[in-house]
């Protein structure tokens, strides 16, 4: 890891270890799940140049899969979360294969259409419980040893999952695979002429992004013991775009910062009802007009180092 980025990572990890003793742990866990979701989304758009407008599909499907596995099949939490991740990855393969065939705005529209289909499927399917969602999902015993009903135990599990996912994304971005992906984003015909199968690279990035979004979704289902339609609705897809845009598209730490800010704002403004939507909209508008690099992006620009 580049020197300065390692320092930032260490600071972030430390802050997160101390966090639950300072802040309500459930809030932090929510922020971490969404941070992982945003990082996964950023992999696709920031580094792959592909705007997916239906990313909630992976968060939500994994949530339902994990909730079902933990509650109905009685699986322990680690297997349930893995099941959710696998489901999201599978979905990523199918949707990715269909969407990759088109570019730009049409790619975004296909992902949106397929995500909407999935939403209505989940609305109707009996196992999801429709508007009720899957409730009373047991937290279970991690690896048969740690009782996850203890909030701190749950928190550190979530933190471990987040850090693992984050590091995986970091490795991916800074690997040869990541470089080719960036090359494809910059100039696809040239990459093709150099012999790289652009479609395969894009598909792998897509599936990876979907799988990690699923990891976030499955973990969230265990933390909140609930899987609901909110997580597959298109407004959730909009939220992750917001987090990534605000934090900084194509930066390493941007999505984490973006997620923290958005979740924090939502919590803080919750008693004010629909002001949350207004503030979110205002952030979108401001970011697009004046703040395109996002928080971390602007910081990186100032420091002249990649963040």
């Amino acid at each position, binding site marked *: 890891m580049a020197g300065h980025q390692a320092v930032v990572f260490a600071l972030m990890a430390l802050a997160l270890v101390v966090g639950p003793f300072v802040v309500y742990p459930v809030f932090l866990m929510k922020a971490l799940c969404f941070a992982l979701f945003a990082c996964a989304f950023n992999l696709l758009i920031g580094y792959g140049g592909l705007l997916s407008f239906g990313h909630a599909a992976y968060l939500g499907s994994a949530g339902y899969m994990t909730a079902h596995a933990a509650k109905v099949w009685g699986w322990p939490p680690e297997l349930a979360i893995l099941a959710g991740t696998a489901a999201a990855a599978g979905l990523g393969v199918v949707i990715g294969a269909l969407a990759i065939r088109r570019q730009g705005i049409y790619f975004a529209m296909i992902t949106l259409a397929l995500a909407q*289909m999935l939403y209505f499927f989940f609305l109707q399917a009996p196992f999801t419980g429709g508007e009720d969602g899957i409730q009373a999902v047991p937290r279970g015993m991690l690896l048969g040893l740690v009782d996850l009903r203890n909030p701190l135990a749950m928190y550190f599990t979530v933190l471990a999952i987040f850090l693992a996912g984050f590091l995986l994304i970091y490795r991916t971005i800074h690997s040869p695979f990541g470089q080719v992906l960036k090359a494809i984003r910059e100039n696809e015909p040239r990459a093709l002429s150099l012999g790289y199968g652009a479609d395969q690279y894009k598909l792998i990035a897509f599936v990876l992004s979907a799988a990690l979004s699923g990891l976030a979704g499955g973990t969230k289902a265990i933390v909140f013991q609930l899987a609901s339609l909110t997580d597959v609705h298109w407004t959730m897809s909009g939220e992750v775009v917001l987090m990534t845009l605000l934090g900084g598209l194509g930066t390493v730490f941007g999505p984490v910062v973006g997620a923290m800010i958005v979740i924090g704002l939502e919590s803080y403004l919750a008693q004010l009802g629909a002001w949350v939507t207004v503030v979110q909209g205002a952030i979108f508008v401001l970011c697009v007009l004046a703040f395109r690099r996002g928080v971390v992006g602007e910081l990186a620009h100032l420091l002249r180092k990649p963040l």
Partner: protein
Amino acid sequence: MILGIPPQALFSQLLIGLINGSFYAMLSLGLSVIFGLLNIINFTHGAQYMLGAFVAYFLLQGVGLGHWWALLLAPIAVGLVGVLMERLLLQRLYGLDHLYGLLLTFGLGLIIQGLFRNSFGSSGLPYAIPSELTGGRNLGFMVLPNYRAWVIVFSLAICLATWFVIERTKLGSYLRAATENPGLVQAFGVNVPRMITLTYGFGVALAAVAGVLAAPIYQVNPLMGADLIIVVFAVVVIGGMGSIMGSIVTGFGLGLIEGLTKVFYPEASNTVIFVIMALVLLVKPAGLFGRAQ
């Protein structure tokens, strides 16, 4: 019995589908016009539709002006709002990636919807069917409310009028030329930026008209545009982004297909549009009537 369903059920659902289709057609028309000329995906369209309905509500509650006045005044009012939006905000994004236009209009939609939701709650305000149009006609297989018949007639009229202006008049030809080559058209002395602004305003006005028509039957509700907008996008993509006739035909057509689905497989009625969109995008990405770009 047709295909195992009593014809009454079939025809009545098809007629309902046609009514829904009118809204799809009008809304997708506005979106298509905007995308065709500005290359902007106007995500604010749902909020602008809602604004049209609210203006109609305010005109009735505040000033006592009914449906007919609203049909005239609401599009003008909301159209002006659209012009302001375009001048102040959208113009700055013309050189950038389409993504930013999408995100900006998405954000604006959130702001407008959030503000209205704060002020008016989300359970809807009542708006009565105009007295001239109450009652219904017994068509044999169902009673068709007069107002809903009016919706079909009026929206067809608007759609065809718009198509005529764009495809068959001089103004329309300037518009179409500016879409293909703004620089050249500007060189000929046509004020292209003003045309763009007015076109955006016009597209927004179309959304507002749809809102006024919707007020008596769909409840005036801050969130009325939110879920509708996604469906309308699907219609535009299927019809072909930028194709006027495509939006009209697809809008009505999709309404009919939705109505049919409600007869045979009601649970899928919300999904069928997206299935079709995914299929069309895979086979003919420019849409059924669109031109490849």
